[in-house]
């Protein structure tokens, strides 16, 4: 197999101590100097030394560093492909080190489909430049001219046939890569790619399907203890009392940890910690806490809250729409949704000699450390956060929170590592959800049935309360300590990427349009980043409304879209999916079956995806099934075709689950979603078959794709239902109750 090595440093304390020395080798430029330096592409801009990214070892292997982390999306394999390609090294000779505050570049969080664009760009340029440095050194050492040299598998061949390996050069001239990147060495043209563009098998899969230690959940350190935490039923409730003596007397209990209203327990064995948690929960008395809104009035409540309004995407037509224009209005909603990771969040922490080491599946080890430092009140150099993969997260779930919980427990048991895995209800009830949203659209058609004017408003909370807040700390336990931190102020994400307003500006060419984003600061339920942020809901609304307008214009939905769309790459994915699905304009429905289309360019910046869904409706039970979906994708230059396919099909199936089933349950007294029975997701018999066409664009830069298919999917399902039944579903999820109400 070609797979590069996954670094296993996290499982060996001795090795991590020795690797810790590398950190000195790539001290970053001081911030003042950074401000004056010429901007460099991707993450190279903030991590400018070549050896922050790539080191050549004397044995001819290379160590590649990235601040991005594996979340099951296959990113480390894709990044290794890029590095190996530019270095002309076989993949098997690469070792990837990722997400470690002691070792790797700081690339913020692994989110927003940006790893290929940011880390991939940095690695491509850094490795191309490293290769050029190696060639120069070889030329100098042998009196060769650089342009006469060839490289294969890490061996440089001179004009006379003499050879020198990367390893030999590295041994002879250590430290040569400790120089600032120029970003000026041209990477290979796509036509020369041998590794990029191949479906290289994922390096992490063998361990995951056999006996490997693949997850932070699988770490087992010597003398390790097990922790569990206890939280109240209501947000912000205050801990009044516990029966500490009783819990302490339970078998195996090492400590009951209480700091303000943070409550946890540590035991020798995991089941002892679980039993002690149950007893602790039964004995704990809480007071106060915040009422939640009445769920039946949620959307009215959200709209009643103060909002900061911004007007975006304005286009002013030269001539106003005719007064006789046909107009249409519609309103759509999306509920709170859970990340619903299969494995509850987990972390290990060790407090030793005043230093914390935290093994975490956080999406951003540096931002997490920034919050831990505030909550634990220690300097940054006393906390090291090391990424180890966890269960898939799909955004900001409990990963960061459980890391602080584990550190707080570890502080109470110095020297001994503490492993804490949240229980199912900890994760469901306390994670930050994807925000509920309201979208209102209004449009006018001209006499030719074209959209003359488009008005769109959306109401949403923030879509990121991630760690590294501007003030306070965005980790759960920090808010309830005896000396608490405030939750960081909720912030929007500016356009063009956007937060709640992500994808709220249509890609279509309307002569006149106006989009208003009502940003609601107050959060009735805790919310943060869930895959696609606002894009899922905005694409649902925009693409549903496009179909409603097509109906009004008596036009085929595909033809109607193409009539409003100039971007050739957008048109190409729509045309490709139409061909793949054998879409027939004007196809009649039998009242039970229908097909629909949805399209978006994710963030209006990343990949283009068009989806066609086939749905079947059981009018008796109200159950919608989606037997098959088709997609066409343009993500620029494809790094790993199978990896791209996997991300797109995963997004389609996950979005089908969101669309048909998902909604966080709560009442005024607290969160009611506490296990899978009150948060059902799509099961194996219900998963649609997916058929995907990839459009490779070797001349275009690679675009993120992990979040490209979710918006088009919901829209395609909604449009297919409307085509099947003649009724429109505008409130998510499309539950049997809503279907029956629509058909009644």
């Amino acid at each position, binding site marked *: 197999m070609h797979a590069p090595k996954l670094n296993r440093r996290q499982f060996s304390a001795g090795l991590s101590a020795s690797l810790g020395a590398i950190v000195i080798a790539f001290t970053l430029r001081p911030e003042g100097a950074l401000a004056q330096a010429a901007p460099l592409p991707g993450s190279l801009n903030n991590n400018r030394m070549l050896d922050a990214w790539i080191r050549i070892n004397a044995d001819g292997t290379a160590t590649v560093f990235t601040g991005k982390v594996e*979340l*099951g*999306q*296959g990113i480390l394999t894709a990044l290794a492909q890029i590095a190996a390609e530019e270095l002309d090294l076989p993949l098997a000779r690469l070792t990837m080190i990722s997400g470690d505050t002691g070792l790797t570049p700081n690339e913020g969080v692994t989110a927003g489909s940006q790893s290929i664009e940011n880390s991939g760009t940095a690695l491509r340029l850094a490795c191309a430049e490293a290769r050029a440095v190696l060639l120069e050194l070889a030329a100098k050492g042998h009196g060769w001219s650089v342009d006469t040299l060839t490289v294969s598998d890490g061996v440089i061949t001179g004009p006379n046939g003499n050879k020198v390996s990367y390893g030999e050069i590295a041994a002879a001239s250590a430290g040569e890569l400790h120089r600032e990147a120029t970003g000026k060495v041209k990477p290979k043209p796509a036509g020369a790619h041998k590794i990029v563009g191949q479906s290289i*098998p*994922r390096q*992490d*899969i*063998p*361990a*995951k*399907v*056999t*006996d*490997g*230690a*693949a*997850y932070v*959940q*699988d770490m*087992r350190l010597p003398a390790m203890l*097990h922790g569990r935490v206890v939280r109240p039923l209501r947000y912000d409730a205050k801990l009044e009392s516990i029966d500490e003596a009783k819990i302490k007397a339970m*078998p195996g209990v090492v400590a009951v940890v209480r700091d303000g209203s943070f409550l946890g327990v540590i035991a020798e*064995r*995991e*089941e002892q910690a*679980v039993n002690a948690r149950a007893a602790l929960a039964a004995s704990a008395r809480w007071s106060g806490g915040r009422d939640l809104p009445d769920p039946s009035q949620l959307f009215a409540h959200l709209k009643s809250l103060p909002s900061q309004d911004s007007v975006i995407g304005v286009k002013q037509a030269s001539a106003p729409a005719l007064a006789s224009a046909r107009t249409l209005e519609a309103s759509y909603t999306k509920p709170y949704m859970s990340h*619903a*990771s*299969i*494995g*509850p969040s987990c972390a290990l922490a060790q407090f030793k000699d005043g230093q914390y080491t935290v093994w975490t599946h956080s999406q951003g080890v540096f931002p997490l450390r920034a919050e831990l430092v505030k909550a634990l009140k220690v300097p940054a150099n006393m906390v090291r956060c090391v990424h180890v*993969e*966890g*269960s*898939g997260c*799909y955004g900001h779930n409990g990963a960061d929170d459980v890391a602080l919980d584990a550190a707080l427990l570890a502080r109470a048991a110095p020297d001994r590592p503490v492993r804490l*895995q949240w*229980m*199912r209800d900890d994760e469901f009830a306390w994670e930050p959800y994807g925000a509920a949203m309201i979208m209102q659209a209004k449009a006018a058609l001209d006499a030719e049935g074209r959209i003359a004017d488009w008005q769109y408003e959306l109401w949403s909370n923030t879509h990121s309360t991630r760690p590294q807040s501007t003030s306070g700390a965005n980790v759960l336990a920090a808010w309830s300590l005896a000396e608490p931190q405030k939750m960081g102020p909720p912030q929007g994400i500016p356009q063009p990427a956007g937060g709640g307003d992500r994808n709220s500006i249509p890609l279509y060419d309307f002569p006149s349009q106006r989009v208003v984003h009502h940003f609601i600061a107050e959060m009735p339920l805790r919310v943060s980043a869930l895959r696609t942020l606002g894009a899922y809901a905005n694409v649902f609304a925009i693409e549903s409304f496009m179909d409603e307008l097509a109906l009004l214009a008596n036009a085929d939905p595909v033809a109607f879209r193409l009539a409003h769309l100039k971007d050739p790459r957008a048109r190409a994915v729509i045309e490709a999916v139409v061909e793949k699905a054998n879409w027939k304009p004007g196809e009649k429905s039998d009242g039970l079956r229908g097909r629909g289309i949805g399209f978006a360019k994710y963030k209006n910046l990343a990949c283009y995806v068009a989806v066609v869904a086939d749905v079947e409706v059981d009018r008796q039970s109200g159950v919608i099934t989606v037997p098959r979906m088709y997609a066409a994708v343009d993500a620029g230059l494809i790094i790993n075709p*199978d990896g791209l396919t*996997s991300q797109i*099909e*995963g*997004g*389609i*199936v*996950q979005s089908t*689950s969101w669309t048909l089933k998902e909604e966080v349950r709560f009442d005024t007294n607290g969160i009611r979603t506490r*296990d*899978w*029975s009150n948060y059902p*997701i*799509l*099961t*194996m*018999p219900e*998963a649609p*078959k*997916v058929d995907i066409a990839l459009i490779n664009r070797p001349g275009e830069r690679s675009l993120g794709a992990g979040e490209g298919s979710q918006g088009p999917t919901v829209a395609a399902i909604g449009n297919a239902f409307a085509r099947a039944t003649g009724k429109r579903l505008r409130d998510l999820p499309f539950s049997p109750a809503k279907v029956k109400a629509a058909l009644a």
Partner: protein
Amino acid sequence: MAISIRVNGASREVAAEPDTPLLYILRNDLALNGAKFGCGQAQCGACTVLIDGKAAYSCITPLSAIGTSEVTTLEGLGTAEKPHPLQRAFMDEQAAQCGYCSNGMIMMAKELLDRTPRPSEGDVRTALAGNLCRCGTHNRIIRAVLRAAQALGRT
């Protein structure tokens, strides 16, 4: 107290209370990583093992219930170097994203293929109905099980 159980063909002594869920024994006492904690309530299937060849949720199975039965975990099927045809098929189909559900999918599929060596796609979907996958890898998992069935049929 010490209790003796048979796991992956060997007899193992564990010092734990009889009501301890088998999952914790496997993971913590026997250092077997395959079975995963997902929900603790038999709702997701991540902890699936075979007990006398029948799929069981190890998160709700107490140690005391094992008796003389034979427990088989993911480790009992094969290794990365010498994988079982099901494990091989999951690699060949790249049938994992985060992979946290893989253990349960493979163990449940093992029970299916032992019972029904030539399953239809519908059989596979039904057999795996109680195993939750969140990444949307469903189609690859189904393909992997069908591929393994073919491979097993040839041997």
